[in-house]
């Protein structure tokens, strides 16, 4: 379904993404991990055609989406939804309108200027919001919502696009652990129930292990790991992040801990 063939993006002399190739069959949940500047965002942005690739091909159902130009490229963008770290909603418009922006590719400029949407689409937008549990927020301005709710509005906009693929660029990096869990579970639900492929850039290993069917590790623009979450051992993680023995993933984990042993150890230390 998705085949990435030696995609490269140069910024000046430096390769942000260096000859990346992989294949995904069927609607998997793919996580891309790596430290900041490893080229994860650049790759997703190339796939959504927000930036151009320097060379290479991305084949979706056998067609190279990097070759589309103009209106065809915009039509591809409408089938390949993007979710951003900072939500990227229109802050002063109401939530339902923000969700309706998902179908902008089929709407004309005049209809958009006068904010005219077909009744069926409005009801569909509200149904999607209902599915994500925030229907009662529909008439509020997007900026009035909390971060976790805004990210769910962004996911609703993505679902409204009815896309084949959803790209998520660090979707939970600016959320607290509780909201992060809700957002990840929502993405997983859309992945499983609707059968849409999700490719998410993640920066915590436990999230990648918990939600992904497959994990790709990037370092300095190159793909250095490609496998199942089970294969993602601490040693492999150290390679991906270029870290030494002192690397401890529990220190940066943002999930809510299931046991309190760490706390107990800490308390014992303090009491000693």
């Amino acid at each position, binding site marked *: 379904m998705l085949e990435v063939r030696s995609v490269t993006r140069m910024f000046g002399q430096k390769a942000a993404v260096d000859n990346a190739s992989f294949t995904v069959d069927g609607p998997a949940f793919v996580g891309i991990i790596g430290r900041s500047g490893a080229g994860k965002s650049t790759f997703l942005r190339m796939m959504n055609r927000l930036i151009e690739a320097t060379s290479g091909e991305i084949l979706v159902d056998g067609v190279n989406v990097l070759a589309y130009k103009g209106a065809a490229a915009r039509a591809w963008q409408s089938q390949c939804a993007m979710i951003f770290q900072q939500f990227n909603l229109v802050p002063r418009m109401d939530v*339902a309108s923000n969700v309706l922006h998902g179908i902008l590719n089929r709407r004309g400029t005049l209809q958009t200027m*006068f*904010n*005219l*949407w077909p*009744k069926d689409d*409005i*009801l569909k937008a*509200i*149904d999607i919001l*209902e599915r994500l549990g925030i*229907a*009662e927020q*529909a*008439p509020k301005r997007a900026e009035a919502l909390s971060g976790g709710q805004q990210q769910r509005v962004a996911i609703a906009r993505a679902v409204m696009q009815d896309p084949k693929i959803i790209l998520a660029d660090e979707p939970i990096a600016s959320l607290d652990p509780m909201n992060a869990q809700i957002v990840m579970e929502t993405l997983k639900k859309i992945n499983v129930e609707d059968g849409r492929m999700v490719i998410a850039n993640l920066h915590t290993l436990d999230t990648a292990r918990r939600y992904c069917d497959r994990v790709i590790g990037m370092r300095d623009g190159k793909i250095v790991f490609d496998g199942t979450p089970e294969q993602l051992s601490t040693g492999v993680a150290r390679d991906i992040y270029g870290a030494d023995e002192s690397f401890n993933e529990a220190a940066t984990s943002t999930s809510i801990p299931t046991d309190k042993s760490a706390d107990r150890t800490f308390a014992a230390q303090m009491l000693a």
Partner: protein
Amino acid sequence: MADTTFGPGADQRLTLADTRESYLAMTRRKRMYGGILLVLFIALMASGWSVSEERNAGGFVNGVPQLFDFPAEVFSEAWRDRANLPGIFWEHVPALIETVNIAAVATLLGALMAMSLSLLATRGLARWPRLVGLFRRTMDGLRAVPEIVIALVLIYVLGGGPVPAVIAIALHTGGALGKLFSEVAENADLKPVEGLASVGANWSQRMWLGVIPQVAPNWLSYALLRFEINVRASAILGFVGEGGIGHDLKLAMQWGQGRYDNVVAIFALLFITIVIIDQVSDHYRNKLVKGT
């Protein structure tokens, strides 16, 4: 409504139905208001057109062909005497420098006044929040009086010359730029201001370090736009006895003296001046934004 009491499932469905209905109602209401506004707008435009058409001495449509008679005469005469143009240019340069000087000094004074007025009149930044209204009304007052009126009064008091023009333009600039500056400052990010407040900085320090660096590029471009406008205002004030290029223009514009070559030369000089200001402002604004 009785259904709502039967368990959470029934409650859920009703909530969704409510949400759908109320959102659709909101959409309908907004569309209706939009439609009414559009109809009102078209009606006002149409009626305004017919009123002005009636009151006009000649009628707009009949007048259109005559619109170009005067420029055509000016340009044909200037073309006939084109050999004189370079000489005329040099003749008017000293007057142009006077006009630009008046505008520059007035813009500088007005912008300084606008800087303090605007920060005092911005909600969320003001030194004395209760006096925001007072400073706003002051700026309104400065803008409301036409500069030509202030200039005429000052000429009466101080006599002709550049000083009344500078004061008149500076006062108007203070009011006009103060409003624009204050609107820019209103959108400034307050986080740096909070950071500076947390270390115990006083109001002027917070404004100088927390707000001015953020708003400087926009303030500069507004101030330079105002400078262009002031060059033109200073030329107009020449008509009422402030000297400068406006005085020359007034003498040259009088009908039927055969001096239209002077008019063209003066307009060309003004145009070139504005272009130069625009280029210079663009250059320095880019420098300021990119921080090099």
